[in-house]
């Protein structure tokens, strides 16, 4: 198992629980296994000098033992399984905290579905291993040891006969386990295939209909369906063999004990009560022996899952930095910035620009020209090379991230709202903001008319468990969040694409009026938006192609003028 020390640390945090849990388990097993001895006692007294009093007394003792055993086992379960739930809780919490601190780069590269499956399915498999897995393993060991010892006392020779089946059980479990695993994997693989092909059919439904291929598709599915049934039956046949076979092996053991034991009784080497006692021990061994295979399975799955989780742990989190200190500010200077994702071609080439505080900068260019990448680098969602960006004279890479995050606030292209109230979503911008401030931010972002139509105004829950907002409403909520933060830098990455032009105009005016010394970066396709900027920077294939004001660039008749003309036409067509 990878990162075994971390795995162990969850157990070493709670030694008391485990000592206590195993202790009560051993004690309860000992009490439970004392009962056959009493049964023998009763039978012996029945044979020799029958005494109703003695029988009644022994029965009372059996009941007492059983009661004590039950109570102890209640605690065993509560303590050991409870501990496994605590460990699960801690592992999940640690994992989430770890994920929260992994760099944006890591999150960009990983798929949410994959991370989820590790944090959910794998964690659950690990929990099965440390909960029922550990408990059952310990139980098997304890019960097995005590029962075999007591059996040996009752009759060593019979014990050997009874244990003779153990190797067979072990081999059967091993072989069956392997074959089961192989067939199960084969089924899982085929399940993926049949699912994928059904999914393809469903996704391509229009095509199938348009080409009238329904019958062929049914035939193709039928072939897969048949194969799937065949593989499933293969596993089912194994199951049909497995448990009956274990049972038969155990039964054969009983038959052997009956025969050999019977001979001994006839020879006077064994008494009937001892024989019965022996049989009772043997019965208590059946379940632990069968459970062993199950436990091995749990451990195999659990450790494989732990290894998958350990891969998440292996990712390096961001260093913890203090959020205290003066906010970075002043001139933002980009010098010779060239950037590429991983080993890909450069997305930005030798970009240089300087932005004074209080300036509104518009980034313009075609799709893929590098606008969003540049903004993401300023936000340090992607790391710029050292020495290429300076903020207030300090290298951006050396500015503590928490401070930078306080100074730069963004409304990303794809807005993300949590399924919580609108107010809570906006308050993310500045925790602890007064209610009036949240309302003000919402109004500034142009949410006023929308709020009136929501059932509970700002307290309306949005998202998965609440109402669905339109694209424009989402964007304005994200903007309100950013405005509430009231940071010296505001980054708007195509943040108004779903807001109509008129509303956008109003919002921008409000933003500008409050700005003062705020520096605003915005990406937009709309001329009306870009006109508000003090400086327009035109990007073309990762390079700065033109810089100037809207009017200057229009007059220059270059790339910007062309883009503007295209936009004008497009607006006209859409308005028609």
């Amino acid at each position, binding site marked *: 198992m990878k990162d075994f020390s971390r795995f162990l640390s969850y157990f070493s945090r709670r030694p008391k629980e485990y000592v206590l849990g195993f202790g009560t388990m051993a004690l309860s097993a000992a009490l439970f296994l004392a009962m056959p001895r009493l049964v023998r006692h009763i039978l012996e007294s029945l044979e020799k000098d029958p005494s109703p009093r003695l029988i009644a007394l022994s029965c009372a003792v059996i009941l007492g033992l059983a009661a004590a*055993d039950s109570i102890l086992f209640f605690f065993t379960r509560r303590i050991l*399984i409870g501990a496994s739930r605590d460990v699960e809780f801690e592992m999940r919490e640690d994992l989430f905290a770890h994920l929260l601190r992994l760099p944006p780069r890591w999150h960009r590269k990983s798929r949410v579905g994959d991370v989820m499956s590790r944090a959910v399915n794998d964690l659950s498999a690990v929990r099965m291993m440390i909960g029922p897995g550990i408990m059952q393993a310990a139980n098997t060991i304890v019960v097995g040891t005590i029962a075999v010892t007591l059996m040996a006392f009752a009759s060593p020779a019979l014990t050997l006969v009874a244990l003779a089946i153990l190797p067979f059980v072990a081999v059967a479990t091993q072989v069956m386990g392997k074959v089961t695993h192989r067939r199960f994997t084969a089924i899982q693989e085929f399940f993926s295939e049949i699912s994928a092909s059904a999914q393809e059919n469903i996704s391509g439904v229009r*095509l199938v209909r348009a080409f009238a291929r329904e019958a062929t598709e049914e035939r193709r599915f039928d072939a897969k369906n048949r194969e799937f049934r065949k593989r499933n039956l293969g596993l089912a046949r194994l199951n049909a063999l497995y448990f009956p076979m274990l049972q038969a092996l155990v039964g054969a053991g009983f038959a052997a004990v009956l025969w050999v034991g019977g001979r001994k009784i006839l020879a006077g080497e064994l008494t009937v009560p001892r024989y019965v006692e022996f049989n009772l021990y043997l019965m208590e061994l059946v379940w632990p022996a069968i459970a062993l295979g199950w436990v091995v399975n749990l451990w195999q799955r659990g450790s494989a899952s732990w290894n998958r989780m350990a891969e998440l742990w292996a990712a390096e989190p961001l260093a913890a930095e203090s959020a205290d200190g003066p906010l970075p500010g002043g001139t933002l200077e980009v010098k010779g910035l060239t950037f590429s994702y991983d080993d890909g071609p450069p997305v930005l080439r030798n970009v240089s620009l300087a932005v004074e505080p209080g300036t509104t900068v518009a980034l313009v260019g075609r799709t893929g020209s590098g606008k969003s990448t540049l903004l993401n680098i300023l936000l340090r969602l992607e790391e710029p090379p050292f020495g290429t960006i300076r903020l207030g004279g300090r290298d951006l890479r050396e500015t503590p991230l928490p401070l930078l995050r306080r100074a730069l606030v963004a409304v990303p292209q794809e807005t993300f709202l949590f399924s919580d109230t609108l107010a809570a979503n906006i308050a993310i911008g500045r925790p602890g903001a007064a209610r009036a401030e949240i309302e003000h931010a919402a109004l500034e972002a142009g949410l006023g008319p929308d709020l009136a139509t929501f059932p509970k105004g700002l307290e309306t829950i949005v998202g998965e468990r609440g109402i669905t907002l339109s694209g424009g409403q989402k964007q304005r909520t994200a903007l309100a969040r950013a405005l509430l933060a009231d940071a010296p830098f505001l980054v708007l990455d195509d943040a108004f694409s779903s807001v109509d032009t008129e509303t956008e105009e109003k919002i921008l005016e409000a933003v500008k009026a409050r700005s003062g010394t705020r520096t605003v970066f915005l990406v937009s396709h709309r001329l009306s938006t870009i006109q508000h900027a003090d400086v327009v920077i035109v990007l073309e294939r990762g390079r700065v192609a033109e810089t100037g004001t809207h009017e200057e660039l229009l007059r220059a008749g270059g790339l910007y003028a062309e883009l503007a003309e295209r936009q004008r036409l497009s607006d006209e067509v859409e308005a028609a």
Partner: protein
Amino acid sequence: MAEQLAEDEAQGRGFDRGLLRRLFSLALPYRGYAGGALVVLFLESVAQLAGPLLTGAAIDLVFSPKAGPPEGGAAFVGRFLETLGLEPRGAPALDAIAGLYLLSVLATFGFMFLMVEWTSRMGQGVMFDLRTRIFGNLQRADVALYDRTPVGRLMTRLTTDVDALNELFTSGFVSLLGDLAVLGGIVAILYALDPTLATITLGVLIPMALVTNWFRKGARDTYRRVRVRIARVNSFLQEHLSGIAVVQLFRREEAAQGSFRTVNDDHRVANLDSIFYYAVFYPALDFLSALGMAAILWWGGGEVIQGTMTIGAVVTFLQYSKRFYRPLMDLSEKYNILQAAMASSERIFQLLDEAPTIAAPPSPAPVPRPLRGEIEFDHVRFGYKPDEEVLKGVSFRAEPGETIALVGATGSGKSTIVSLLLRFYDVTKGAVRVDGGDVRSFDPSAFRDGFGIVLQDTFLFTGTIAENVAFFDPAMPRETVERACFDVGLGPLLKRLPDGLDTKLTERGGGLSVGEKQLVSFARALARDPRILILDEATSSVDPETEAVIEKAVDRLLSGRTSVVVAHRLSTIVRADRILVLSHGEVRESGTHAELLAKGGLYARLYALQLKDREAAA
């Protein structure tokens, strides 16, 4: 996740007889297996019950024989031995009894194997049938069903919901009867041996049943709570992983961690509650079984002293009492299986009961073969939702061999026209006619067979290029496939690929470029030599070289047949016989390129915009 929650809530529903009957009707084709399983089940129960009887007989007949004729179980076994011509005493009897014991073990094994094998065949058969039916149903369901149902949910019906029925048919109802048979058999034997002691032993069953019922209810409630809470944990995780950028940009790590702790702890607490039920249940059963044992020893011991019972009989009682509670526990589990199966089957039946509205009329008109290729839209009105009209009275005609180009802004209704022409939906007013017949008068599948279509999203299936072009039609000759590929200009690509036409494509045509995928989808439409071609041009831009190849391919595709094109390419638009300019669900302008350009209206502006885009791409 929301669906998950809703499904959890649906679990609590009560017993539905109609549903149950329908559920069992699924097993009808496999009644042979079911019957066979019941027979071997009965035999298996008998074999299983022989063990304790034989042990008791061994004690009474062989180990400590008393004077006088044997009683009870021992008498039964003794008579059995005598009929076999064996001495019911001493070593020979022991050999025989041990042999019988081994025989019963082997018989149990054989019967059990057969039972599991046959019930599995039944279960797998039922699932196979259901998957076939669901899939077949999906092939006929209205396209509108797919608009309103996410793919994932349909997949759940086909996979998870079907699987939930497996247990009911394999380990569910047959072994339910098996458990009842074992319980009944034990009760019968015990009463035959000693009615009083049998009554005392069965007395333990009452508290056992009560405890089991208490456990079942409590465990079910807590289980439901656990599921709801784990769903919350997961959706919290999912949400915060999806929105991790916002969390980090606004430095909400600590706060998110705090909220997560609450959700996570709720889940832990719910689990601890459920542990309580388990922690009480299993020890309580152990205790009750010990209680039964003590009662047997006490009362049975008394009878032995009085000479009314043998030690062997007491041991037989002890061994049977040990076998009580497994069937009892199983019974409570079966109830849960049944509930889960009912919830799943209800969802499955709901899907199966969905009758398509786009279907053949009772006596469909014969589809003309070959089609002439005449299309008419006659004052067509349509909306996906009743209150939102997408087409507001569209009329046009296409004569055989004509190419009609549909242009307009996004959302103007171009794609809807295509969907109505293929009868994916039915018009609300007006009519769509092909070769003079209303599309609603034909069998939809037979009708569509005369069409060729290229969708905007060049959807390719997992399989070889040849299979994709033939659309898995085994009857299509290889030459036709080759011809179509060469005609659309796939020749150079096929020559370059080592496996040529037999190159395997992964999901969605992975391994091919955007342009190549388009060409394959062209070949797919062309291979069928359709009389009517529908082309919804892709908007994604390709390099100029590929563009030239595609333009040529489009030319080849459109010539010699009636074509309706949702056009984005200037070359396609310009060569069309007629251009329909759509805006907000209405035909605003109609005519040839030259006519419309001269008019200086909406088309002229669209054209200018296209030119700009073309310059930008160059």
